Every structure is written in C-alpha cells, then in structure tokens.
C-alpha cells in the first residue's frame, strides 16, 4: 500500500476518475452475470474484488490524492465496491440455489423400494390377547396372579368343591402324571390359582389368572387339548352377583365396544349360583336373529356368543381355603382366550393356534386389535 503522497502528480491519479471507475464496475458486473457456477463466481470475485483487482488497486490510490479530492474519490470507490460486492452476494445465492435444486433433482430415488431390514417379528395373537385382557383388570386395580401348569390334584379339584367322584376327574377328561397315586395332573383350569391365591393372600382379593390349561380333548378345528383361560376372582365383604355382572359388562365393553352380557343359569361345582356368560354379538347386535337375509357368521345368527362360565364362589371353596363365608363372599368367572381370539378376529381353525405356522402368528401384525 502506498503511503500518503505529498508530492503528488495530478496526472498519476487519473485512474480515480469517475468514468474509469464506472468502467471497472461495469466490467465486474458483466463478469458476475456471466458466472454460471459458484466456482466461476469465486474466480470472478478474485478478479474483480480480490487484492489484485483493478478496484482494489484503485482504492489504494485514494491516499495519494490531494486532500480536497480524497473525500469525493473515497465515496466514489466505496459505492463502486459495494455495488460489485452486492452483485456477487446476490449471484452467489442465486447460483447456490440453482445448484442445490439440480443436486436434489439428480438425487431422486425410487422410494417405493422394499425396505425391510430384518425379519418381521410378531407376538402370538394369544399372548397379545392375554395381555390385553389382563390390562383391562390391571387398570381397575386388580392383580394378575399365576400358578404352575403341573398342579396338585387337590388344588385343581378338591379345593374347588369338585369331589372325588366328579366326572371331570376321570382319565377321560383330565391328564394325570404317572403314577396316579402322586396326585399330580396337568391343570384343567386356571382355577387352582384362585385356590392358591385364597390360601396365600390376605383378603380382600381382586385377581385375574391367565394361563395355559389342558384337557384330554380331541384335536380338531374346534377342540384343542391345550388352551388358554383367563379367570377372575373377587373375595370381599358384600360381594354379590351384581358385581359379577358389572365386571363382565366392563370387560365385554373394553374388548368389544358398546355391548352387554347375559348370564344364563348353569352348573359348576365351584360356584353357586353358577351361570354361563353370553356376549351380545358385537357384529350384528342381534339383527341377524330370524333374519336370513342378514346372516351373521360371528354369532351364527344367534345374537349371543357363548363366552365362558361364572358364578358366586361356592362357600365350600371358601371354607376349604379357610375363609369365613359368613363374613366374605366372592365371585369368579373364566373364559377361553383362544375362543375370544376366534370370534373377535374370525380365526376359524383352532389347530392354527398351536401348529407354529408363522403366518398365523403374524396375522394380527403382532398386536391384539
């Protein structure tokens, strides 16, 4: 850079003349306009506003001007450089935008390509339904209890008022462990968990017991020797059959929407009174009954679906567990989880539940819905 020029020659500062500066600006703007890429623009910037550019060199000369000319020339140079810089900035933005647009366009791919990265896992529909039903009760503040699948005969039968001569205790109905004299069997119901609960828990109890049970049953589309049950038990003061109905109505509504249940008198050794639970058909709501034009395959046009059994806990069961039936009363209910999946999700063949075909396990995409 030149120092202050005290011995200046007016001829030497002619480059600071207005017309020459304007020419420099015009040249720069033309070059900026001509740059078609950001890289070209970079070169233009160097050439026209870089350290060696005519404008930069001219600017250096301002100090050499006589004091009276400096202000004027300085303002002129400032305007010129600003004009060029603004043009570069604007062009830079414009080119960058165009380049990005071009890049994005060039990067277009087919987003419909399959993307699965590892095998599609799934929870078995029965597990999902079991959890879903348990959750209804957990949300009411109940407890979920469980017990062993190989069970003591006494807990599976005697403790539940099912005497030694009850037909269900025969070899045709119940699978026993060898030797018979050891009194061990594959539980035929989840009810022994209720007996266990009463033997080990302080009252009151509000429990559900989901789990696997076994019967010496055929193996076909509608029968399995292994199935899943959810049983519920309440023992508290002042419990009545109205509480049973209320609980079942709640469960039914939670799983099937706005429907009701019907209790039909029945017989079970461990409850008295006993009832079977019918579910109002959640598909046709009874509209298919006597209406051959609108058949319903969910309820077979009967309007009701048999769901399970229930009743007031037989005081004999309470006595066998050491509970005073004059103080406490109880309600109990149970239903098949397999059956619930069957009619809720239109599963038609129970064998599919246990044959291990992955398509069955995946059919609800891993959830109970």
């Amino acid at each position, binding site marked *: 850079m030149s120092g202050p020029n005290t011995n200046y020659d007016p001829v030497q500062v002619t480059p600071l003349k207005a017309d020459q500066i304007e020419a420099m600006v015009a040249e720069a703007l033309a070059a900026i306009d001509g740059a078609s890429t950001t890289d070209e623009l970079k070169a233009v910037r160097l050439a026209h506003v870089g350290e060696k550019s005519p404008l930069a060199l001219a600017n250096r000369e301002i100090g050499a001007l006589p004091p009276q000319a400096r202000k004027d020339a300085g303002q002129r140079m400032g305007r010129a450089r600003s004009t060029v810089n603004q043009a570069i900035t604007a062009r830079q933005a414009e080119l960058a935008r165009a380049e990005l647009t071009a890049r994005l366009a060039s990067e277009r791919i087919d987003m419909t390509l399959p993307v699965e990265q590892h*095998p599609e*896992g799934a929870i078995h529909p029965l597990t999902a339904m079991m959890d879903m039903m348990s959750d209804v009760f957990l949300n009411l503040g109940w407890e979920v209890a469980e017990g062993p699948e190989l069970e003591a005969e006494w807990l599976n039968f005697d403790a539940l008022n099912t005497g030694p001569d009850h037909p269900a205790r025969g070899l045709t109905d119940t699978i026993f462990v060898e030797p018979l004299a*050891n009194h061990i069997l594959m539980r035929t119901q989840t009810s022994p968990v209720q007996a266990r609960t009463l033997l080990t828990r302080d009252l009151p109890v509000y429990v559900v017991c989901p789990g696997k049970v076994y019967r010496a049953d055929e193996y076909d589309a509608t029968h399995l020797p292994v199935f899943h049950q959810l049983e519920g038990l309440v023992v508290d003061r002042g419990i009545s059959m109205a509480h049973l109905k209320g609980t079942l109505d709640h469960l039914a509504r939670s799983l099937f929407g706005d429907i009701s249940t019907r209790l039909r008198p029945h017989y079970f050794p461990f409850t008295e009174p006993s009832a079977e639970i019918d579910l109002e058909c959640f598909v046709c709501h009874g509209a298919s009954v006597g209406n051959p034009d609108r058949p319903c395959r969910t309820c077979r046009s009967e309007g009701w679906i048999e769901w399970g059994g229930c009743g007031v806990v037989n005081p004999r069961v309470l006595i066998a567990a050491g509970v005073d039936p004059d103080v406490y009363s109880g309600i109990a209910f149970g239903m098949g989880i397999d059956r619930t999946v069957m009619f809720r999700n239109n599963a038609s063949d129970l064998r599919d539940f246990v044959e291990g075909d992955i398509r069955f396990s995946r059919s609800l995409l891993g959830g109970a819905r």
Partner: protein
Amino acid sequence: MRAPLSWLRELVQLPADITTTQIADRWTRAGLNVERIESTGGDVSGPVVIGRVLSLVEEPQKNGKTIRWCRVDVGPQFNEPATADEPAGRGIVCGASNFKVGDHVVVALPGAVLPGDFAIAARKTYGHVSDGMICAEDELGLGSDHAGIMVLPEVLDGRPLVLGDDALDVLKARDEVIEADITPDTGYCLSMRGLARETAQAFGVGFTDPYSSPVPPETSSGHPVLVDDPSGCSLFTATTVTGIDPHRPSPSWLVRRLEASGMRSISLVVDITNYVMLESGQPLHAYDGDSLQGAIVVRRAREGETLTTLDDVTRDLRVGDDLLICDDSGPIGLAGVMGGATTEVTASTTTVVLEAATFDAVTIARAFRAHKLPSEASKRFERGVDPALAWAAGQRAAALMAELAGGTVSAAATIVGGPRAMPAQRISADLPATILGADIGHDEVMEVLRASGCEVEVIGSELRVVPPTWRGDLVDPYDYVEEVGRKVGFERIGSVLPVATSGRGLPSGQRGRRTVGRAAADAGFVELITLPFVSDDELTRLGLPEGDPRLSAVKLQNPLSDAQPYLRTTLLGGLMTAVGRNTSRGQDDLALFEIGSVFHQRGDAVAAPMPSVSARPSEHDIAALDAALPDQPRMLAAIVTGQWRAAGWRGPAVPADWTHVAALAEAVAASVGLRLVRRNAEHAPWHPGRCAELLVDGAVIGHVGELHPEVARAWGLPERPAALELDLDALLAAAPGPGEVAPLRTAMVAKEDVALIVDESVAASDVRDALVEGAGDLLDSVRLFDVYRSEQVGQGKKSLAFALKLRGAATLTDAEAAEARDRAVAVAVERFGAVHRA
C-alpha cells in the same frame, strides 16, 4: 334330554298360544340350556288323511305283480261323489296286500307332498286313474317300516278315528322336540315330569304330578327280595305282571315317543320300562319272571364273580365295589347300570318281575365308569333319582303292561326300604337378595321356593326349608339362592362394577415376560405356542448324553396319544418341528421363538397330599402341595434357519446364523436390564465347537449356538440352523433393581487401537475382559473391530483388534492415554501371552 312337545303339553296344561320357541327361551333362562329344536313330520304337506277301504279288486298284471284297485272313503270333504257304480270315495291303485276291506289306512291325496319332495298327483296306471296313494310308514317319514301299508286300529289312544282327519295329527306324528343340555345338578329334569314341572313354574300354570303316590310301608308279599347293602340301595320295589302276551307289538305312539326321545324300540315290555323312565326319571328293569331263580339279592360283588351283561360282554366285577342284583344263580344285573343276559325279557316272556329301585349315586357312577357302560339308567342314577319315586313309577309301568300287553298286575308286591327324609336347611330370608344383588323380597323368595316344591316355614328372619324329594341338589343355603335366582330370572340382577382395593398389579415375573416377548418380536422373531407332549423318539433325536437332566421327562398316566407319553424338557423340539411345518409350506427363512414351561421329573418324586376340604389345610400340607410338583421352569427358546435377510437391491443375502440368536439373547437380557456373559462351551444339542453358555451373575442360565449337524439332520432341518434356549425364570430373577445412573464425564475422549495376537483357543471375550480390567477407571468403551489371521500372524494364532476409548475427569494427555492403553495390554499379555502388534 330330548323332550317331545306333544308329551310335554300332555303333562302340563299350557295355553295353546305359547309357542315352542317361547318354551325353549324360558327353559334356557331357567338353566335348561336348549341346544336345538327339531320337528318331526314337518316335511309332509298337503292332504294326508285317514281313510277306510270300502272295496278292493285284485288284478293280476302281465309282469307277475298283483295290484289292488281300491275304493277308499277319505271323508266327505275329500270324497268324490257317489256314482251309479261306486259309493262316495276315491279310486286308488295299491301294490300292497296286507290290508282288507274295512281297514283304516293313511291316504295321501293329490296335492300332498311326502318326504323327499315326493309330490302326489292323480295319475293313470294299470288301466285306472289312481287318485292318491295308500301310505306305508316309511313313505310318511314316520319310521323305516315298508313291510306294507299302515293299517290303523279303529280306536286310537281312546278316540275313534274320523275319516278325512289329518293323519299326522291323529298319529301324533307332527311334533317338535326340544333338546336341552341338563346340568349335573338338575337330574330331575332328565324326565318329562321334571321338565313339565319347570315349564309349569316358568309360565305360572298348574301342574299335577302323575307320580305322586307315596311309597307304601315295607312288604314282602311279592317276589322275595333281600337287600344286603342298604347304603347302596335305599329302596327296592318288585312288582310282578303275569299273563303278558309276548306277541303284542309296541303301539306306534309309544314307538314314536321313544324315537323322538332318542331311544330305539326293542319290545313292548322293554319299551314300556323305557317310556316310564323317560316320563318319570325312574330307571326300571324288567326280569323274565320264569328265568329268575329264587330271591333277588342286592349286594356287593364277591371274589371271582363275573356277569354277562345285555350287550353280551362278560365283565369281571369289582369286589366290594360293584353293586349287584343276584338270584340263586349268582349275579343277574349290575345295579342301576345294565341287566344281565340270563334273566333278559325275551320273545317268549309272559311273566315279568319289574324292578324299580333307588341306588346310591356314587356307587352307580363308579360302576358305569369302571365298566365303561354309560346308559340311560346310570346317567339318571349318577345325578340322583327321586328317592320316593320308585313305587309310583313301577306301578305306572305295570299298569301299562296290563293295558298294552294284556298282562295282569299281581296284587302282591315287595317293598324293601323306603324314601329318605330330605335335609332341612335354615337360610336368612335376605340371603337370595344379598347374594344375587337383586331386589327380591321375602314373600317372593317363599313363593318361588314353594312353587319349586319346597316346604317353607318362617322362623323370625330366617326360613326353614325342606326340599321336595326330587330335589336332592338343594342342600346348602347358596343352593336356595341359585334356585330363587334362576326362577326369578338372572336378568333381575343389576350390574355394578366393584371398586377394587388397590392390588399389586402385574407381578414382576409377568412384566418381565411381556418385556422379553416384545423384545424378541422387535428383534425379528415370531412367537409360537406349541404343544408340550413328546415321544421317546423326539427325546432320542435331541442327541443328549446319558444322564442329561432333559432325559428325565415327566411321564403321563393317560397321554392323549400313546406315541407321546412325555412332557417336554426343552422347547427346542417344538421349534424344530415347527421349522419342518413351515418349510413344508414354503416358508424357509425362519426366526422363531417360544416362551413356555418345561417339566423335569424329580428324582425324589413324592405324592401330593389330599387334605380334607372341611377347613383350611395346615401350613405343612400347603407346603407339601408345592413340594410335590415337578420343576417346571419357564424357558425362552429361539431358532433361525434360512436367510436372515434375503438378497435384495441393497445387497446380497445374509444367511441366518448363530450371531442372530446370540444377539437375541443379548437383546432380551438388555430389555430387562441385564448383560449376559457368553462363554465358549460344549453342550448338546449344539455343535461342540459352536456353542456358548450364557451366564448371569456367574451362573449358567442357557446356551446359544449352531445346532449339531446330526441333530439338524435327525429333525430334517436345513443346513446350519442356530438356536438359543435359556431359563427365563432365572434371567428374570437376576434382573437388577432400579439401577444406577453414573455421573457423565464431559472431558475429551482419547482413542487408542490395540491389536493383540493370541492363540486361536483364547476367547475374544476373555481378552476383552483383560483389557477392561487393565485400563481401569479411565476406560470409556472397548470394541472388537477386527479378527485377522495370516502367515504373518502365525499358525494357530489370531489377531484381535480392539478400539479403546479412554476418558478421565479432565482431558487426558497423549502420555496418560498411552499409559492406560499399555496397562490394558499388559494384563492381556500376562494372562494370554498376547503379543501386541504396534
């Protein structure tokens, strides 16, 4: 129980406008679960009427047959008018010859449609216009008899036949049958009498019990009877009927009622006993009086005794258990179950000794189960027969034998024992309302119980109730609650959601299993539920060494299939079978898992106690109940075969291998807050060089690896399947408590890579552990990033490359980081003779 409606309406006077559907609905609501309603005679339509043969001309035909050209009077409303030659009637051609002029017959007139869509029209045949058809039984769908056309008596069921009347109505062939499932506590409804009573009560109409005559005092004037075992037989009545005409057939109404009720007609005498049993609920047995030798004795079986029952099977009798009917010749019947062949009523029987007795329910139930002889009689005795019914039922059957078979009922009869007194119960009058949760006043309770046949006496706020003899099920106070409930209708019960005292929610074990199951599904595995039954062969195919605990399987007494008498000791068998099923259905790329119990036979198997149910069992007994159970841990198992990832646009296929099941093990452990240690091991059924045991807190809880190729072959699996099995109960038991959040160091990380040459036999995880130990507190993370083998590295050696990240409280200097690295390497060098490749 199948109940013909015509019979029901005979016993209970129901208003005619009450439909079968309404009856069925009330039954269901009262606990008689209606399974179906059937119609008989419903597929006959149009004019099928009673006619009388006025004249017949036999006309032999060229084809050798002889037809009859008949004139039949079918009543003024159907007759063609009389002509000069013929009286009023219809001309009908008939091929049968078992009737004569004057006989009453059934005539299907033109316009009638018979079963099988057989439309009747006037048609020209054998030179006549046949204006209808004279019908045989089978043509009307009433039976299978085509021996000839039906010839009816002039008076049927006490009423003279009227020509032109609807034949199906007259024959009571048009009927409906309600089939109801009778629960074990309502045995009295295994009778028309019981069903009629329930129906009468449901509709509030009167009911007169046709079997109400009381049991007279004991008498021994009839056939001699000795009851040796009054606990097994509380009442035995014997009535003798003589002079029976053995050739009389059962009348059609009787046959039809039996058939509608699901029983076959056998002979008139047997049909009568069955008819009375269906009507009253009292099983009866008829002995051929001439075959009986001496007194009838009721006693238990003795050593070496056998009995040939009516089904011609000779049965060994259970000494001291089977209750027998005997005479001087020995056993002649298994009481309440089935009679014997030697005293069976035959086609020549003219004298019958009729047994109507009350047998002990438990004795009969045990006998028919032991001999696998369920019968209509045993079914009723098992559920309890009205102990005051025997006499009335025997008398009714004897009267029918007199009426229908021409017999004479002997005035002398034998009665041993008598009806038992029914147990009285005191209940609070409020109990039904309280337990049902319904608004039911005392008056209504009493009204219902009285209508059910109970005697009710009010004592203060309590009721003293004595059930009727046919209601042996009414014992406990709650039995009366149910009786009131089902009679007023369960629809009276309200709906109240109980408010639970806050419970313990989901037990941690269950929460853990849910978490683990979802982690496995998220990791790409499909959950299966398989059956737990296994065969000897399946146990063998696991290739387990002798003494392996998984060979000590629990054996079942009565397996569903004799081929699979054991319970699984591992989940792997079920998964391997499922692989086969899926591959056979074209699904080759599989990642499967199951969570379920396995069962281990105990070496010290003991019997579970059978404590009394009259009170809570002792703590000792409660403990013993659990102690007797086999170990049944819940396991998690998984298997992979085929491709983990199929070849695709992003790259080549990734074969499923042991790393995927090992990763699953780590993922499920992590899901419950645990890190598993994997240690090289040999364990069947895995490949001995490709198996690791899984440890938590130093304890082995499972194994993972490639399956042994021989096991894979034995189960028909594709090449190189890999599997995992771990004890889920043990895993969840080890799951940590709340855990700890360490303060985060924010200083800069120093990175150091080390490559260590070790013997092939040295486990990578052990080297890693050495580095961790050596680097100490400054170690942030360590990651194995390469395993390298070459000539340079050396024969039988491998180079393991680890990336260490080191971080102190303050940023480490280069020297500090190098020092930490050297400490880490030093431990590996010392422990495994590792050579550090700088």
